């Protein structure tokens, strides 16, 4: 009798394995459960090929349950103060330049609003603070803005600083609109006081994954990125997505920020037989890597971030920029009349061309202004307005917010041909013939 039990056990295990295999097979062929988080294509949702997770976060928006809605409106305020934090002055020329563009764009929206009567005749006043200074300065600056009685805040660009700021916003119960940070983890935090109106690096990664694997059919892609937080979290979705598509990256290389000789990394990438290379870092680093690639005879297609979509990059990379493919949040030459008017007004006012930070800050500020006009001068009510938005029509196009209040509008692919950028909005190719 005893000998029968092990046999029965083995039989049972085999049966379970067989059923499990069938179940897994059936699951991968069926339609995925509906989800909203990041508008993630089913093929690259975590563990989708293996099992349904115990719980999916962000399918519902988390409500605010505190008492802040009860706070009375200020009596006879002279102005409605709005906080603004961004890198405005500091060691990084790239960040401070974009921070200034972001401020300019936001200011244009508030100035327009003031010309249209502000908030029920009370003008808006934007108080700007620099977060590119002391370590974790954004938190301190937001506290200082809270001391000045701001109703809401806009900011910032750097992922680290914006993370610090949004946590402070949560404690202060201060609604915040992020218009410039592409750090995907920002809105993964379930803070019911913060929305992001620009697309993040996760959306950029989706667009690049689709272009590299589904559209162009590459199977051997390499990654070379900076060894910093921006590039680490900025490429994570690409790394994971490539693996989930069944084509993991052939090699991953990490350089130290400030390095100028990239040949040791490039030699390894070439030796790995890469057909395409994803580059993630600062714009001058990307331009230099491409130059060194081309001069050493490496002709792999280059995919990179939105940072490369600028005249500055074209200038730095010169002829080597040809064929580079980048992700970008919107179509800057869409012909949208409001967008064109914004460009004109911006040029006239600031004597320079608006970049994506300016345009997206303008959209985010307009969304905030409309929310304040609906809600009134109570932070929690303003929060209720901004976090109830499903979609908003901006000059960049439709801003669609998911369950984490993140803009999940599909990003654009920008390809450089003959020294010009050509844009098209990406659409995920579910089952590509190219694969």
């Amino acid at each position: 009798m005893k000998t029968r039990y092990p046999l029965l056990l083995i039989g049972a295990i085999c049966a379970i394995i067989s059923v499990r295999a069938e179940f897994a097979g059936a699951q991968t062929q069926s339609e995925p459960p509906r989800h909203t988080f990041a508008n993630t294509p089913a093929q690259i949702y975590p563990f989708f090929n293996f099992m349904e997770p115990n719980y999916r976060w962000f399918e519902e928006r988390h409500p605010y349950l505190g008492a802040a809605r009860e706070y009375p409106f200020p009596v006879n305020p002279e102005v409605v103060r709005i906080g603004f934090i961004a890198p405005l002055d500091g060691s990084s020329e790239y960040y401070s330049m974009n921070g200034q563009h972001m401020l300019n764009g936001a200011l244009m929206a508030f100035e327009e609003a003031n010309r249209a009567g502000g908030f029920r005749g009370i003008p808006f006043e934007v108080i700007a603070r620099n977060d590119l200074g002391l370590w974790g300065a954004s938190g301190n600056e937001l506290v200082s803005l809270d001391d000045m009685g701001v109703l809401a805040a806009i900011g910032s660009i750097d992922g680290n600083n914006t993370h610090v700021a949004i946590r402070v916003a949560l404690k202060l119960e201060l609604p915040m609109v992020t218009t410039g940070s592409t750090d995907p983890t920002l809105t993964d935090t379930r803070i019911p006081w913060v929305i992001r109106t620009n697309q993040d690096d996760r959306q950029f990664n989706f667009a690049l994954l689709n272009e590299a694997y589904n559209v162009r059919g590459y199977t051997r892609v390499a990654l070379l990125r900076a060894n910093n937080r921006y590039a680490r979290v900025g490429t994570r979705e690409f790394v994971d997505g490539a693996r989930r598509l069944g084509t993991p990256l052939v090699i991953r290389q990490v350089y130290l920020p400030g390095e100028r000789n990239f040949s040791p990394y490039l030699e390894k990438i070439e030796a790995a037989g890469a057909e395409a290379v994803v580059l993630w870092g600062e714009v001058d680093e990307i331009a230099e890597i491409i130059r060194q690639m081309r001069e050493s005879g490496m002709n792999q297609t280059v995919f990179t971030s939105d940072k490369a979509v600028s005249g500055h990059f074209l200038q730095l990379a010169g002829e080597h920029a040809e064929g580079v493919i980048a992700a970008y949040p919107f179509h800057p030459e869409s012909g949208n009349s409001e967008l064109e008017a914004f460009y004109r007004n911006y040029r006239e006012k600031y004597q320079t061309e608006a970049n994506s930070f300016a345009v997206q800050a303008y959209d985010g500020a307009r969304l905030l202004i409309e929310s304040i006009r609906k809600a009134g001068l109570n932070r929690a009510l303003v929060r209720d307005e901004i976090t109830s938005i499903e979609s908003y029509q901006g000059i960049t196009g439709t801003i669609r917010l998911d369950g984490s209040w993140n803009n999940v509008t599909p990003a654009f692919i920008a390809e450089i041909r003959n020294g010009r950028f050509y844009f098209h909005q990406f659409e995920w190719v579910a089952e590509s013939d190219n694969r």
Partner: protein
Amino acid sequence: MKSTFHSKRVKVASLLISLMMITGLSDLPDGSGTLHSGSEKAGTEMDSKSVINPDSEEKDFRFPAVPIYGDWTVYTMDDGLPSNKINAVKIDEDRILVGTDQGLAVLENGKWTIYTPEDGLAHRNVISLDVNASTGDVWIGTMSGLNRWSAGVFERFDQFNSGLANDVVYEVQADERYTWIATAAGANRFDTYTNQWKIFNEETSPMHEPWTYGITYGGEKAWIAAWGGGVVEYNNETDQFRVYRDPDGHFQISLFPDDGLVHDITTGVAFDNGVLWVSTYFGLSRYNGQRWWGFFDHNSPLTSNFVNAVKAKYGIGYMATDDGLNTSDGNVWVTYHPAEGSSLGETRITIGDRQRRITTETSISHGFIWNMDIRGDEIWVATSRGLSRGVVTGYADESIL
């Protein structure tokens, strides 16, 4: 949708219970647990031997079961508080220290005294508090700097005059020698004997992200709730680290319920009787050194996954959620919430798959809980609208169900 349904359910239940109370049909515990005006007792009667004398509090004391708090007293601005938004509370011998967004309030001999930046407070917005039991020094974490309040003097620490990692001080915990601090951009250990600062961030420790929210200590160890980085355990004797992360590694899912830390977005840590409790905005974790348990509002009596803070004492975990106060030993749960649409309170007791809801005549002042402190048989609760004090009125055991 879920919260609407939940609200309706609570409303209906409250209505029914209230009706039953009026008509005398309520399923109330008999004897010691009889619920009547003025007593609000429920569950097993509190044995006088189990009442803790705070003056002779034993380190390893454990409640015999999860206590049931009642007889709630509420304090608001009407009573002398400078604000109804209460961020932190600390029981300090015979006085109560209260951190509000408009200053530090101290309740002593029935009288409130308010301290503001004019008195030396680093910032009006006080968000964390602790007392060094050996020296009596009060440590005050604010939105803009840290104070040591000693002998009537507020000493200020900030990024410019000390090794404080950041001026936003989310948590401060003082043991006999060290003061442990969690800031918006790194954690600290301040040695009060030598005045030396040690900083824990992504460069000096295996901290995946440098933003810290909570910190606690126990024995030779300290634990840091690193927001986005899980929990960093630091051994104060060996200077070594250990990191606990969500095993599935993804913010958007929970792959398995009990596979480890429920999420990397941690908001607080508490250690007591060999058990580590970790709060997150995605549920609660409990770790006994061998096994992790995950608690969510969809698979346990936890009233909300959004857990602002956690404390642990006498073998019980206390969770400040945005939708009620929760207490548990890991098996039995007692949760507290104001009854919707009335001044009554609702206490829910859950043992296994059985639950009992009791309507109480007094209540915590608001369901959004920022923090709490426990000493002896009393609990003080910091809420979004007012401060509440409750006392142990019984224990949650089988007799109550």
